[in-house]
């Protein structure tokens, strides 16, 4: 029990449960329906998968601002490949490949040239967005989805979550295992916690960093494939501002932006919490501006309470 309380993700979990319960009480007929839960889980998938990558990056002491652009670029690449007549698998892999390469390249700048992650990913955020627009000829690309759309669309009327949801869960579980139970994962924590110590202990710091950014790229790519599956068009202007949403999910989930701390489970809870707030507000029929105030308020209250709780636990 005490171990549970000490977990970083415990606070956000409580916030999630409380917020969920409140909406359930306020709108039992609509918010309580299974279809709503299904829709929410679908809507969380893109942020969640991107947040898994961002957790790795943040734990390693970095930050990734390019994830929104990367998602957009991937959706365009996938659409382009489908238009050219390639199969869905080729298109999806092609999209992921591009995103992974971009991630690894950014990682190389961070690791080898010791450039600041903030600046590198700020630059690539702009470059990838431009590339997406250029590649798409400044338009949304209409592509035959060839089955890719089913990744995030349940069979009409059915309550079985679509493949994308399971994919996100699988990615999260794998990444959590990677972080907690492999040498690479421990190295990521070590690099984020104290890079000099890591180097002293023979951790291949540069390779770890490049690896982290490449994985984040890959996952941004996967998120992009799912974004395409949701939009069914390649949209170069999509996912603007996604980076903040993703970082917020990770930080709400207990990660520290100075590195060395963070959990996949926490990030998933953070991502879901934000979807719940958004959906709940829609169900309540709140105008957008009220919704924004409520969202901000919940973020503040949730993490403020978390602070108070931990403060009282330690002193």
């Amino acid at each position, binding site marked *: 029990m005490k171990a549970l309380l000490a977990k970083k993700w415990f606070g956000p979990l409580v916030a999630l449960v409380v917020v969920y319960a409140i909406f359930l009480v306020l709108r039992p007929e609509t918010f309580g329906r299974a279809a709503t839960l299904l829709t929410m889980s679908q809507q969380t998938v893109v942020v969640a998968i991107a947040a898994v990558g961002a957790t790795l990056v943040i734990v390693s002491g970095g930050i990734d601002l390019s994830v929104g652009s990367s998602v957009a670029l991937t959706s365009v690449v996938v659409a382009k490949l489908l238009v050219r007549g390639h199969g869905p698998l080729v298109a999806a892999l092609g999209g992921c490949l591009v995103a992974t390469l971009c991630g690894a390249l950014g990682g190389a700048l961070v690791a080898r040239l010791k450039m600041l992650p903030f600046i590198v990913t700020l630059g690539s955020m702009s470059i990838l967005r431009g590339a997406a627009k250029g590649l798409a000829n400044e338009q949304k690309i209409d592509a035959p989805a060839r089955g890719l759309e089913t990744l995030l669309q349940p069979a009409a009327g059915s309550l079985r979550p679509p493949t994308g949801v399971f994919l996100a869960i699988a990615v999260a579980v794998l990444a959590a295992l990677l972080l907690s139970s492999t040498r690479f994962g421990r190295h990521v924590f070590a690099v984020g*916690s104290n890079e000099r110590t890591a180097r002293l202990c023979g951790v291949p710091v540069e390779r770890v960093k490049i690896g982290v950014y490449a994985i984040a790229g890959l996952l941004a790519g996967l998120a992009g494939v799912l974004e395409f599956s949701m939009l069914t068009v390649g949209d170069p202007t999509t996912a603007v501002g996604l980076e903040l949403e993703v970082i917020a999910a990770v930080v709400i989930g207990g990660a520290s932006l100075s590195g060395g701390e963070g959990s996949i489970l926490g990030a998933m809870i953070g991502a879901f919490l934000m979807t719940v707030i958004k959906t709940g507000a829609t169900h309540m029929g709140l105008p957008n501006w009220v919704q924004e105030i409520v969202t901000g308020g919940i973020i503040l209250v949730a993490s403020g309470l978390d602070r108070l709780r931990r403060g009282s636990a330690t002193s």
Partner: protein
Amino acid sequence: MLVVRGVEKHFGATHALTGVDLTVAAGEVHAVLGENGAGKSTLMNVLCGAFPADAGTVTLGGARYAPADPDAAFRAGVAIVHQELSLCPRLTVEENLLLGDESTRAGFLDRRRLRERAAAALARVGSTTPLDARALDLSPAAQQLVEIARALVRGEPRLLILDEPTSSLGADDAERLFALIGELSRAGIAILYVSHFLEEVKRVAQRFTVLRDGATVGTGAVAETSIDAMVTQMAGRRVEELFPRSEHPRGEPLLVVEALSGSDKPLAASLVVHRGEVLGIAGLVGAGRTELLRVVFGLDRVVSGEVRVGAWRGPRSPRDALDHGVGLLSEDRKGEGLAQGLSLAENLALSRLPSFVRGASLRATAQRWVERLGIRAGSVDAPVSELSGGNQQKVALARLLHHDVDVLLLDEPTRGIDVRSKAAIYAEIDALARAGKAIVLVSSFLPELLGVCDRVAVMCRGRLGEARPIAEWTEHAILKEAVGA
């Protein structure tokens, strides 16, 4: 002057102080002794207002003293030099010295006055560090002097607390510090002095108080107590020989360094260390001993020269060195030696993780080392930052032992470690040598070098002298070569 009665302090489940009594008179140098984790630093932190006591009373000069924050302590006339170096890394020496007490004129900083005050304080402790140097560019010794100067920059305190001030100082600087302490105590300032060097305590202190497990277990006059008796009080039992030394026959050469030069230091250093041998390297602070070890280990850039261990030719990278059985213990445990945010168990296993890590086995391993080295830790899962300074040092050393390297490069391995644990570490080193390992020991503590090493070489301004058998050295001979005479 200062009277402490029944002070208690706990961090969560850890009871750091369980009942401390202490009395210090004006003008007295009072040593606070105790093993690692006994609660010395915690007591000092309570006294300087860093955190409040949970119980007990403190009076200062007859008045009730319970500072709400460090600033209140300063104003009450209590100044402290903390055990761990704690300058603002990116600020200059001058900015660090006067932090929190800047002189202003008409709302703006009075630069002339600031520089004067800073320069005066530095001169007082005998530091020659330029005022505009950034703290992060200074050696630990230079930083330590700045911290001592900082305790005096606001004018004479009534009570000065020094928590292991000499642990990173060289002999010269330490001498100057002792002279300063004498001067201050003659001026009526009370001084609390924490140190694991009991010879030092003998020299500077008049009275002492011993803490064990967070409680006062004894107090007395230094002149009337032998070092052995102090140690016995600290440990709660007699401690056998400090430098256990057994026969460890010298084997074939293992580590060979040839004409190795770094970007600044060392300059064409050559040495050979055999299996079963402990090679000591002596020298003044700044001589480049640390750099020598770092270059050998592949952490710093090599300009020329070569390192060989068996068939391996280096240096290339720390990973490579570790893979070929060479390990380094860093002298900077806070900034480099340990990842403060990670747990004891994670720090301990960091250099030797299996591809798949099982938390349970990490903890079991850590538990073994905790017992073997007598590390005092609440839990192996707690962040290593919660350990006392000496216990952190043990964790850093344990990592090297756990990695089971053949060549151990030890940079100030006993910094901040209590006498009993020192003996244990020396025994450990002795055992390693017997097991055929090669050990390079850098230390500024001459008795340690003379007591443990088989051969000693002296480094002076980047150049490494010839390594000669221990029998040919005396303290005097080492010092003479170290200053380049």
